[in-house]
């Protein structure tokens, strides 16, 4: 994969580049400010990029804005947003266009390098990688009329993992269940929530997120 890494702190940026290269991926450009990030995304159209939310010049949400602007110009351009804190507000903005290829994780997620690179690959494939904390908040703050309370505990767990962006196999591995059991859960869950079941993982996740993200 060809990547762009946008992060203003030198230590973190270099550490991230080293980690990504250690997994055999190529970092084609790095950026340390919002405008640089947008420039790099336009120029390289990377398979996926890792972008910090807060960057110079204003130390506000420059990175997020650059990512949103780039995705408005190039729909579906895969971006993974990293931040020291996760906000539902930002997650909703990232998911609003419904075109997939979006990740939003805490910076701590780099601690588990395998999972982090896995998330990057998923996003590059047009999938999603959402922070569990955001998903938990999305699930708990959706209004009760949505039918979420009809789900069993297991179905709830499957829904949360699915919303993070995991495939059926990955969910099965996390919950120590077989693929067929997972697909049984998803079918019953989708039935209760009224989401059209779909074989394609990405469309399925997007359906779940769109469902959670409804105002």
């Amino acid at each position, binding site marked *: 994969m060809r990547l762009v890494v946008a992060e203003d702190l030198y230590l973190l940026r270099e550490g991230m580049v080293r980690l990504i290269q250690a997994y055999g991926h190529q970092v084609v450009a790095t950026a340390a400010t919002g405008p640089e990030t947008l420039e790099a995304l336009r120029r390289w159209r990377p398979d996926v990029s890792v972008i910090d939310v807060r960057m110079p010049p204003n130390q*506000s949400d420059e990175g997020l804005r650059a990512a949103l602007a780039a995705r408005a110009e190039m729909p579906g351009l895969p971006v993974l947003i990293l931040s*020291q*804190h996760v906000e539902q*507000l930002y997650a*909703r903005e990232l998911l609003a266009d419904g075109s997939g290829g979006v990740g939003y994780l*805490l910076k701590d997620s780099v*601690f*588990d390098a395998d999972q982090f690179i896995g998330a990057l690959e998923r996003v590059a494939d047009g999938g999603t990688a959402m922070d569990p904390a955001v998903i938990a*908040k999305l699930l708990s703050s959706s209004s009760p009329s949505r039918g979420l309370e009809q789900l069993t505990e297991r179905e709830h767990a499957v829904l949360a993992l699915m919303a993070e962006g995991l495939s059926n196999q990955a969910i099965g591995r996390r919950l120590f269940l077989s693929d067929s059991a997972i697909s049984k859960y998803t079918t019953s869950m989708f039935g209760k929530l009224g989401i059209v079941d779909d074989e394609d993982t990405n469309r399925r996740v997007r359906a779940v997120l769109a469902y959670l993200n409804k105002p």
Partner: protein
Amino acid sequence: MRQLGTWTGRIGVGFVRSCVVAVVTMPAPAVWAVAVAWAIWWGAGNPWSWLGPFVLVCVGTLGLSRPVCRLVRSLVARWTGTFIPAGYLEAGPVVRMSTGYWWNGFSYERSRRDAVLDQKWRVRWKDPAVWRDVRFTAIVPFAAGVVAAVPPAGVVAAVLGLGQPGLTARLAGVLGLVVAIATAPYAWRLLVPVAVRFLRPSRAMAMTERVEELTAQRADATVAQAAEIRRIERDLHDGAQARLVALGLALATAEKLMETNPDQAKALMREARGGAAASLAELRELVKGISPPVLNERGLVDAVRALALDVPLDVAVSADAGLRLDPAIEAAVYFGVAELLTNAVKHAQPSRARISLAQDDADLIVEVEDDGRGGANVRADGGLAGLRRRLAVFDGTLEISSPPGGPTRVRMALPCDSL
């Protein structure tokens, strides 16, 4: 018909109020009249005849001033809702010294009673508010009392005139009645501007009060800031710092064990990673409490939106576009809204809430409303009182209406140019 009813009502109320104003303002002129009569009775020939009446005028006016002013203030507040602050000097504490004497801020006295009495008179003598009251008591009979006396005088004329047989007398009676009815709704109103003009604290008094208020606020703010810094230090000391030490220890041990016991080394590394994640989570919470990142990144409105998304409630946020505020005010408002939402969730069990942020010419108005069970009130050491104190630093105010059964409505107003 209804209009006739309201007219009669207004005339009745106005008449009663005019009578009250006339009665309240007249004691001082009555005393002066007595003094004049006294002086005339003693005769002009006696060179000392003016002395007694003069003392009577002074003592009478001074003695009447405070009750008259207090009455006028409460009448104006009750009739028009205009609150006129009295602004009297507050007496300081009277304390017993180690010598056994009592110190009242001015002098030492043998007993507590003497000290308090001495202090009372000294404070009265020094207090500009007392002299302002005297001035008002002397002015108000002419400025408001005479006009307020017109309706009762008209009624008196009507009663006297209509009771007599002559045509002129009757005409005068009718005229009196007409004047009384026509002036009744308006005659008492002159009291309000006169009271507002002459009874409110002078600039110097207002300034003194403001200085005292600011001194108290500065003390509050200093104490609060020191406590906050201590809390942050304690959190860092017991949290992140301790965790980093443990992290270093685990890494050092893992390095040592790498050759001899790779499995245990790996386990230690995993543990270290967990520790790093935990300390990050702790720091994140700490940072959120000091200065929420979303507030720095997005400003007040989006930060409040983010807050609204995070509470387990249906919260509608409405805000004026282009709200531009000072960061310090934004932080105060943000933490205020956060506290109000937390309170609502904790105590009122609401199902939905509404937050609105609006800016008018001078103030930022923030309203937080929930449909919970209400019954919230401001206790001296409670969270709402603390919030009110924090807003007061910016000359902001907090009003709450929370009848039992709900809904709870809180309104915060902050002057935008207070920094």
